[in-house]
């Protein structure tokens, strides 16, 4: 071709490449995030993770005659990512349910932010700063993504029912203020395009993401994630890992997560507690846990 360039060649090249960009971009970002969250900065984070934010002491839980958790103790430190792993039926989800007050243990004490408690309504757990996602997505199916996340702001909203009835003055201002917060989360989670779609119509991976958004909308101090990557494909898992790392590092949110994907657990978490048949069999850094013969016998050796 001659040295001159016919103008429109440029946009053509521009827009074709643009469409392929996001995928690559997220790939790169995950790689970068992984690198940041992996071995490289683990020491940094160990420094930052300080006092114990939640401790579980000698907790036992049973339903009727069935023991779900037997005498388990462990703690979660501020700013860390704590993984709870174990084979199916090990009592992991029951543990989360105990932590956020949905079940309450027959024995044992849970201390959150220095306050001891044994029994409480889940609402109080939420208002003291614990939020969570669920193993089988528990979104409000009849509501849009936006409304689901706005529902997560409930604790932060003050205005009374009369203001809302007239949708006037402070109630509207409050609503708008919270909408903005939620919009930032929507932006962060890259779910702009489904903002107004009823969540029941969304594919599973996106539902998981909306659920994370709803939990984040509560601005929790402790975020419990129950199998955040179950049923996801590789790309979705990478996205989710990236979100979890960013939440942990830049929002400073302490995270406890249950996950079956060992790669993810070992990459993400600072410390891992291993349960089996409702008992704790190991607790430590990913490397320690990986090397623990009990864990290898009970868990890694069997199912992986």
């Amino acid at each position, binding site marked *: 071709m001659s040295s001159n360039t016919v103008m429109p060649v440029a946009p053509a090249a521009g827009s074709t490449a643009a469409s392929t960009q996001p995928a690559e971009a997220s790939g790169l970002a995950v790689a970068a995030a992984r690198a940041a969250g992996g071995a490289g900065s683990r020491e940094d984070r160990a420094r930052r993770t300080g006092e114990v934010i939640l401790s579980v002491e000698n907790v036992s839980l049973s339903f*009727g005659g069935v023991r779900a958790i037997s005498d388990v103790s462990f703690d979660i430190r501020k700013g860390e990512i704590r993984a709870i792993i174990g084979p199916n039926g090990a009592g992991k989800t029951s543990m989360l349910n105990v932590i956020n007050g949905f079940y309450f243990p027959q024995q044992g004490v849970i201390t959150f932010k220095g306050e001891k408690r044994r029994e409480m309504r889940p609402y109080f757990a939420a208002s003291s700063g614990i939020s969570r996602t669920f193993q089988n997505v528990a979104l409000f199916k009849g509501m849009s993504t936006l409304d689901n996340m706005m529902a997560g702001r409930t604790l932060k909203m003050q205005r009374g029912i009369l203001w809302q009835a007239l949708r006037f003055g402070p109630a509207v201002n409050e609503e708008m203020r919270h909408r903005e917060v939620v919009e930032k989360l929507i932006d962060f989670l890259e779910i702009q395009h489904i903002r107004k779609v009823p969540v029941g119509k969304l594919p599973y991976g996106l539902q998981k993401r909306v659920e994370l958004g709803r939990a984040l909308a509560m601005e929790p101090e402790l975020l419990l994630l129950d199998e955040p990557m179950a049923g996801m494909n590789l790309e979705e898992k990478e996205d989710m890992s990236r979100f979890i790392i960013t939440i942990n590092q830049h929002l400073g949110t302490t995270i406890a997560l249950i996950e079956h994907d060992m790669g993810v657990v070992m990459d993400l978490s600072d410390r891992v507690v291993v349960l089996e048949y409702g008992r704790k069999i190991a607790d430590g850094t990913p490397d320690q846990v990986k090397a623990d013969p009990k864990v290898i016998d009970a868990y890694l050796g069997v199912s992986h």
Partner: protein
Amino acid sequence: MSGLSFAIPGGIGAVLAGLMFVLLRGDRRSVVDTIVHVALAAVTAVFLGYLASRAIDNPGGFLEILVGGLLSGVLYSLVALGFVLIFKASGVFNYAQGAMVLVAGLALVRSLDYLTGLGVANIVAIPLAILFSGAVMALCAFVIEKWVLRPLLNQDGLTLFMSTIGATFVLEGLAQMVFGSGVYPLRLFPTDAWILGEGMFPGGILVNKLDVWGGLIAAILVVALAAFFQYTKTGRALRAVADDHAAAQSVGIPISWIWFIVWLVAGIVALVAATVWGTKLGVQFSIVFLALKALPVLIIGGFTSVPGAIVGGLIVGAGEKLAEIYLGELIGGGIEYWFAYVLALAVLLVRPQGLYGEKIIERI
């Protein structure tokens, strides 16, 4: 009002007992719950104490009311039984049970009238009419299963419940359109009464023969149902379905057949109830409100329990009769109109699963 003198100390004692009970149990209870429990315990204690005092005043009258109440409670149980069967097997809360009683009753009484009008002897006419109304119930079961329940398979309980309200309306409209909407007397059982225990109490105790018949029939029905569930293949299949739909299906029990059978059995139960109730009240539209009376019976007894339906019926029957007579003179008559519901509400607050129900463990 000497009864009050028993009621007050009894009530105070019950409140204290209730408090102890609440404080001692390690269960998770909110303040609201505690207040509610104590209040309920107090009200119950006062009511029972008052009844006791009245019973001592006039034991014969009390017994008469109690026996009458218990026996009419058996009739509630008959309707409640139909609910329990369907709920156990299909998880459907069948609001249409009352309408089914109406349909069965109308089919029975109208066919019987027709046959006797033709001059057919009762001995032939009655079995024929029963056969006919049984066939009508089978048709009902078939239609409901095919057009209402099957399309709604796997929907949640509330949807199914509302669909049975729809079915109720259709059945009521159709039945009255086809069989007429008057009051049709049915004479299958004696309606006079025995006077018992004249020696023991002044004036004796009046017991309706019909109520006794009702009790007998209920007993026979329960035994028959128990045998059916225990000893027939279909009955065992039904129990399997009740335990686990998916599992039952996976071992090759066709669910639509099972549902049809269940609704048919419930229809037969409705027919039995219709014979007794029809004799008592005459077959008429207001019979459908029986279904509404059966609801508190179920709440008290538990949705899934056959013994619960019987016991619940007895409690409701006795309770409302006693309340009507003894409370009615204090606060005005017509209490039996709502007493059962308030009783059910009280039970719900303390034991949501009912007396015989299984405790529900919530999961997420």
